[in-house]
């Protein structure tokens, strides 16, 4: 067991290290640098030189990287060149927003997709199935930046059910927080619903044809019992795998929703940092997101061993 975790930890370190090097190289290859953002119209050669020296950007690339890496090992992810906010603080305030967005949106997605799949897998290609497929694909074809303004126009401006923008931390005021996060979460959820629904549905259809289902039926078990207790469980494999891939993609892909709803999440901070050439912020957030992705995959893998005892935990 310990060996398992040690091995996983090593893998995590290797991946994180490689990604940190790649991100570092990538941002330094970008045209422009923080002096453009910081100095604005006072961006003269003289001022740039001073600024570079102040920020340590005149040192050789390798040294800049090792300095950063060293700081990371001491728990210091650096700070923004612009407002000096520490990267740790950016992550600490941004991560809860993204985690909440992802959790709520995936919960909603499962809550819609699973019942739909359970129902339609028993009667595929009937009217209800086709309507469900059409609707979920309609949602998939509407990207978040389309769904969001439509929802805001209807549910916020017209009906006044939800705010157009706004956020309070969950710990501060859970009720308002959840109320404010509904529309942003719905904007993200749309794509996931179609994926989970179709996946689970096809899995259930396959599983329902297996011998052990026929046997359960012949034993006189009710349809519902068969569905929920016997068919559903093995089908959760692909759902888990898809969730892993989907959430991984969402981890830094929430930028558009954060931008539209004025949420200071990691997606927005990351993109803004790239645009402002705020190197340390980009490197810090990328590192955290990559680690989160890897840990997520580990968890999914672990869950596999839990869901199916046949799967051997290495």
């Amino acid at each position, binding site marked *: 067991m310990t060996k398992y975790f040690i091995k996983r930890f090593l*893998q995590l370190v290797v991946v994180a290290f490689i990604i940190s090097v790649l991100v570092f190289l990538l941002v330094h290859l970008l045209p422009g640098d923080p002096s453009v953002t910081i100095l604005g119209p006072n961006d003269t050669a003289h001022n740039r030189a001073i600024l570079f020296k102040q920020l340590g950007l005149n040192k050789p690339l390798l040294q800049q990287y090792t300095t950063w890496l060293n700081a990371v090992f001491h728990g210091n992810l650096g700070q923004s060149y612009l407002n000096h906010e520490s990267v740790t603080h950016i992550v600490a305030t941004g991560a809860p927003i993204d985690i909440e967005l992802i959790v709520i949106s995936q919960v909603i997605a499962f809550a819609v997709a699973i019942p739909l799949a359970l129902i339609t897998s028993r009667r*595929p290609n009937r009217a209800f199935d086709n309507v469900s497929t059409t609707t979920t*694909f309609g949602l*998939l074809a509407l990207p978040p930046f389309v769904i969001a303004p439509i929802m805001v126009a209807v549910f916020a401006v017209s009906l006044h059910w939800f705010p157009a923008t706004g956020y309070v931390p969950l710990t501060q005021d859970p009720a308002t927080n959840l109320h404010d996060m509904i529309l942003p979460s719905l904007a993200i959820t749309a794509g996931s619903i179609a994926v989970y629904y179709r996946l689970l549905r096809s*899995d259930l259809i396959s599983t329902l044809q297996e011998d052990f289902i026929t046997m359960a039926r012949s034993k006189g078990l009710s349809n519902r019992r068969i569905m929920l207790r016997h068919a559903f469980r093995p089908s959760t494999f692909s759902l888990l795998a898809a969730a892993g891939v989907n959430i991984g993609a969402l981890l830094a892909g929430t930028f558009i929703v954060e931008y539209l709803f004025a949420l200071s999440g990691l997606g927005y901070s990351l993109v803004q940092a790239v645009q402002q050439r705020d190197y340390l912020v980009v490197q810090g957030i990328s590192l955290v997101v990559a680690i989160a*992705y890897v840990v997520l995959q580990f968890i999914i893998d672990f869950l596999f061993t839990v869901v199916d005892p046949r799967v051997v935990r290495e």
Partner: protein
Amino acid sequence: MPDDRELGGSDASDQLLTNMFPGQAATDEMVLSRETEALESDDILVTKPLGFLFWMAIGWLGLVFLLAVFANLLPLPNPDFQNYSAINATPNIHHLLGTDDLGRDLLSRLIFGARVSLIVGFASVAIGTIVGGTLGLISGFKGGSLDISLNAASFVLLAFPAIVAVIAIVAFWGSSLLKITIIIGVGTIPLMFRVVRASSLSFANRDFVIAARTMGATTPRILFREILPNVVPVAVTFGLITVAGVIVLEGSLAFLGLSVPPPTPSWGNMISEGTANGNLSINPYIMLWPAAAMFLLLLSINLIGDRMRQRFDIREGLL
């Protein structure tokens, strides 16, 4: 679960390295839960009629392709021509689908835009499938250090924050239809690699493959004749799903200014343009037509993928 490589399990570090990267277990399951029996070289498939909806889907896909390919020959106005006296026109005789906020004909832009969306969608996934799929096929079968390093690389690429990469590459390299296709194509390589690899892996130890090897078949022959036919259905299904995803992704890239440069239309940048500058309330048609077209395309792709999977899945074919 057929675990990763069974290399004879001799070396302890080998064991460590072969299980180097997680997530493959998940992919294995996702792939296997769909597969029942392998196709051996002389299997006969039980077929079932494909259905009316399937042919509708093929029809729509075909129509879109034809229109996109032959757009230049059609009697359409120039998709980039701006007519300032016909800004935001509702559908009329001169403009069957109306005009956008620069007075450009929406029908024309829709058809020319199909080109970009289809090329970006299919070509990029083709890149991913050919490169990633080939690598996955070989890697899954052969194993060893090749497999370990490719697997590691694919995992790193998947964990990398893609948005940073795209912004940086476009800032550095510029954007055009070709460049975006390549960038997204490279991005799909790790995905296709993992899927094909898992599939190849699962067939590598099947009886018929071992039998072929015992009979003296060379690796290329085994790969081509025994494993590839079994891997193709999975690759195609997953590939189609990815095409759908890429076509939608192009819209998000357009929103961020990272897609094809203006004034070239694409469904993605038309949708993006349709939600900007208050157009959603002023002229919803700008967003509506490309969204509807994209929706129908995704539906078609999904239906086709579904039916194809059913064909290759013997049990499900009996439904």
